[in-house]
């Protein structure tokens, strides 16, 4: 417990200090509220807007979770298929990378034109940002199977599906999880962008409205919610990893 406390207090103090300096600087230099609101203003605004924010946040959470789950599933599926069929891997890997070179901000309006204002274009946006880190990390993990264990499985006469399910996949699990952790934070970003481009609810939509009204304080409230959401999702995945990967990875 003591060790845990030791690792927690430095960032905690840093955040407190940062907020204090921010608060002090805003009042000391008389910075206008529409330029940079003080933390106290942001907190007050969050309280008065609580109900409205709750509605928008729950919409965003819903979208994020569905998109994140779908994106992770797509990423794992792609990794599995490409790993088991090396020909497909060499053929499609460049396309995967290409898919990441298209800016999401440019793609989202296109998806809107093609698929309308429903859930589908938003979901596709999130899947597109989420699947890549999962797929790459999983494929990487799958190819790094321990040589001695692989040799044992082959000598013992294990079939391909046995090798995959009993050796390669569990061995790749830590690597898969680092991909999923990245995807978790990306998925919140993807949801915000999707809502920003075309939606009638959600934090992204709320931000777009407040930006037009120059309500900087409310924008900051929205940013806080996004940060909190990303953090929560990340922590949840980290917890899941702790539960599933109980064994200590081998030192090389």
């Amino acid at each position, binding site marked *: 417990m003591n060790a845990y406390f030791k690792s927690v207090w430095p960032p905690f103090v840093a955040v407190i200090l940062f907020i204090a300096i921010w608060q002090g600087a805003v009042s000391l230099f008389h910075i206008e509220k529409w330029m940079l609101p003080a933390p106290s203003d942001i907190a007050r605004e969050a309280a008065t807007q609580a109900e409205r924010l709750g509605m928008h946040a729950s919409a965003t959470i819903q979208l994020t979770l569905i998109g994140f789950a779908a994106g992770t599933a797509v990423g794992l599926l792609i990794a599995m298929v490409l790993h088991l069929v090396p020909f497909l891997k060499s053929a499609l890997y460049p396309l995967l990378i290409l898919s990441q070179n298209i800016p999401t901000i440019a793609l989202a309006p296109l998806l809107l034109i093609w698929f309308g204002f429903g859930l589908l274009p938003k979901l596709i946006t999130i899947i597109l940002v989420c699947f890549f880190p999962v797929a790459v990390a999983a494929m990487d993990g799958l190819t790094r199977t321990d040589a001695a264990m692989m040799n044992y499985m082959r*000598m013992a006469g294990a079939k391909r599906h046995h090798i995959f399910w*009993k050796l390669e996949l569990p061995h790749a699990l830590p690597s898969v999880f680092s991909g999923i952790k990245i995807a978790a934070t990306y998925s919140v970003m993807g949801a915000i962008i999707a809502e920003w481009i075309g939606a009638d609810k959600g934090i992204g939509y709320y931000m777009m409205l407040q930006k037009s009204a120059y309500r900087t304080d409310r924008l900051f409230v929205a940013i806080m919610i996004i940060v909190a959401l990303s953090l929560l999702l990340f922590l949840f995945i980290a917890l899941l990893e702790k539960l599933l990967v109980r064994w200590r990875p081998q030192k090389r």
Partner: protein
Amino acid sequence: MNQQQDEHVQPERGARALEPKHGEKLHSANPDLPTNTTAATVPPALDVVDVHASFRERRSRLPVLNGLSLTVKQGEFVAIVGPSGCGKSTLFHIIGGLLKPQEGQVLMNGHDVTGQRGKISYMPQQPALFPWRTIEDNVLLAGEVAIDAPPRAEALAEARKWLSSVGLAGFEQAYPHMLSGGMQQRAAFLRALLSLQELMLLDEPFSALDALTRSDMQRWLLDIWEQNRRSVLFITHNIEEALLLADRVYVLSNRPATVLHEVHVPFDRPRREEITEESAFLERKRQIAQWMREEQQKARLS
């Protein structure tokens, strides 16, 4: 993989009545297999016939095995010693069916199994236990990947019985990294022992252990094997280890490897460690060491 493979498995199963009890030998469970191996009636567990293998290296071919032949009779413990890099792993990969030799055959129980996998039980140099599986689940692994996997409950009961008889009681639910090197190798050996295939290939199983643990493990293996008498092919660098454990020792040449000499080890079983001080033992040890030295000299000169 094919029908031929399936029909081979049956006779091997009969020979596998594993009972960790003293004096109950494997073959007594199967009346069809006489304990004295007369070549005419019982085909050998393993017969490697004139195997040639080479690897492509740039544009030339690098020969690795050059007409190597060896035999493991039913219930016999055979060791292979040879200079390092002589192609022992290639030989094991051929017996395991991972590689196909350019020439020659691998026969098991009289059937041609060249290039067929899943015919042997294998214990690698590193324990290669899966770190995410408990010791119990690791030991069960070989059964899980077998062609006709036994029911899990049955396999589990047998595994538990064995774990306690090899001194791993209380570690069934432990993960491999919690165990010492020697205990890990015991679990790896058990994993091989509990797999359905009658022939065991042991690939320098004790080479990564320290000297004390190693001699401890040799005594342990001797004990376990003398109770069960599986057919074993054992690779080692250690001449004394080979002579202590095996009924016969093959001495291999440099690469490309052939069988240079075959040494019969005439000591009775159950063996005790004291035989390492007998003159017949020392004489053979000296002789093999000299052959190995000559081979190494040849390698240096060429």
